[in-house]
């Protein structure tokens, strides 16, 4: 419109400043504070100088931290694996086998559960999987087993099931979007050149949809590592993950420096894994071209 680049830039900056300032004050500044706190000394709700790497040293040397971090990563890994593997066929189905006019309805159906109370969904899984719960009563009622399977007693497994359910729509949508972008004439070309359906899928569709798979992996993996509610409710606090440890350090031990260090370390590890995963995928994709 009636703007030289500089006046356009000014108008844009003016518009973006309220939300950006909000994000800076409420997010960037607190994150920066966490970063600073993580190299201070903390006790009884206070932090003090001098700068120290003591907190990180603790994280590395005391096995409980690495054990919980490892558990968090393992849970996230399996949740990600399960959601993405289960989601791909759904995304494929909606993209390739559902009439265009009904795609939006399917996506809506898939996303609805996500918008219903997270706490209630997690708590429900507890009643479903618990001792003499719904799952046990169904399985025993059908005569499949005489003793209660009581899946809930296996904390990690219950957490994985619950999280995989909670994050399912997050995996479907990005894969669906990337499948929608696949040029349908390429598939016809593939079959025209004598490829079987399966080979066409493996050689054309799958590689082209990998960006969506990568996005799905990241969208599920990153937040699940830091999930707080599920271990708390499902494991009854007996199967804590890194987020629960963070809470304990911050609020129970009132060591904000250590809590900050856990947060920074966890985010760094997640970020490194994500970057590594993306790079590895880029190389793989690049090699195929």
């Amino acid at each position, binding site marked *: *419109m009636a703007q030289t680049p500089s006046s356009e*830039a000014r*108008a*844009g*900056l003016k*518009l*973006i*400043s*309220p*939300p*950006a300032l*909000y994000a800076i004050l409420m*997010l960037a500044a*607190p994150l920066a*504070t*966490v970063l600073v706190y993580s190299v201070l000394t903390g006790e009884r*709700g206070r932090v003090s100088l001098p700068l120290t790497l003591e907190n990180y040293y603790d994280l590395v040397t005391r096995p409980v931290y690495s054990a919980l971090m490892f558990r968090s990563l393992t849970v996230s890994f399996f949740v990600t694996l399960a959601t993405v593997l289960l989601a791909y066929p*759904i995304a*494929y*189905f*909606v993209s*390739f*086998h559902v009439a265009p006019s009904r*795609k*939006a309805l399917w*996506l809506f159906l*898939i*996303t609805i*559960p996500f*918008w*219903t*109370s*997270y*706490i*209630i969904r997690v*708590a*429900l899984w507890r*009643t*479903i999987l618990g001792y*003499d719960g*719904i799952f*046990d*009563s169904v399985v025993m*009622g059908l005569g499949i087993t005489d003793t209660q399977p009581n899946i809930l007693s296996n904390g990690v497994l219950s957490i994985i099931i619950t999280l995989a*359910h909670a994050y*399912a729509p*997050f995996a479907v*949508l990005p894969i*669906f979007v990337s499948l929608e972008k696949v040029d349908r004439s390429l598939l016809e070309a593939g079959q025209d050149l004598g490829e079987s359906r399966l080979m066409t899928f493996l050689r054309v569709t799958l590689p082209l949809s990998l960006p969506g798979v990568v996005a799905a992996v990241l969208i599920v993996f*990153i*937040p699940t590592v830091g*999930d*707080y*509610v599920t271990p708390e*409710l499902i494991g009854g606090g007996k199967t804590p993950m890194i987020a629960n440890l963070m*809470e304990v350090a*911050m609020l129970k031990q009132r060591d*904000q420096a250590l809590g*900050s260090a856990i947060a920074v370390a966890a*985010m760094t590890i997640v970020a490194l894994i994500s970057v590594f995963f993306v790079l590895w995928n880029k190389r793989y994709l690049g090699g195929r071209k």
Partner: protein
Amino acid sequence: MKQGTGLGVYAVIYLVFLYAPILILPVFALNDSQVVAFPLKGFTTRWFGEMWADANLRSALLRSLVIAFSTATIATILGLFAARASVRYRFPGKPAAMGLIMLPMVLPDIVVAMALLIVLLSLSVPLSMLTIIMGHVLLCMPFAVAILTSAFQSLDRSLEEAALDLGESRAATFRLIILPLVMPGIIASFLICFTISIDEFVLANFLGSGKPVLSVYIFGQFRFPAKVPSMLALGTLLVLFSIILLGIAEYFRRRGVAKAGGKDSGGFL
């Protein structure tokens, strides 16, 4: 298509898995037994009565509604600024600003909660409903921006120019042309933010004072087996409420796309 039917069956099973917990909710909310297990014992509505008789729950609900309403309003307004800036203008630092605004979408809630908590404590800000709203706005803003961005994107820029060309000022153009056409997106954004805020637990738990909001209250009640059925009753109502709100939001979002002459390309995310 053979391959299609196989996938179709899988799709239905998948949906059943997705909906199983939600479908179980009303079944046991209406089941005349404190034990949540099969076989069913009989029909009752007493859990709903018990739930509604709980004064603590009612005050928690009221707090949640106030927080959700404030959050949805503020987040949608801030989202309008960000979405408009992002669709319409080029300016230095745009990727960084947008990235920061969208960051809470991928950041674990616990990190956001703890970081905010540290700052609030160090500044001696008392925890209250206000601090929860502050956190929820941060969390909802990315969703508001995403919805409103697509609303602005489906707006033909020459509509604005046409209104200016026909003699209207920039302010009048915004009021007469842009706002009505983006209104469905604004409503959708408001409803989505409202839903997120009502459901949110982590920030509400750590940034709140001793007086719990609804999600925190529910979380606490699930520890007592005797309270579970009435919580299921509450859950049933909440799910119903969410689905109605989402249905309305989806209706407005689609109407917005259709109004602007665009092509519908899917859901909220």
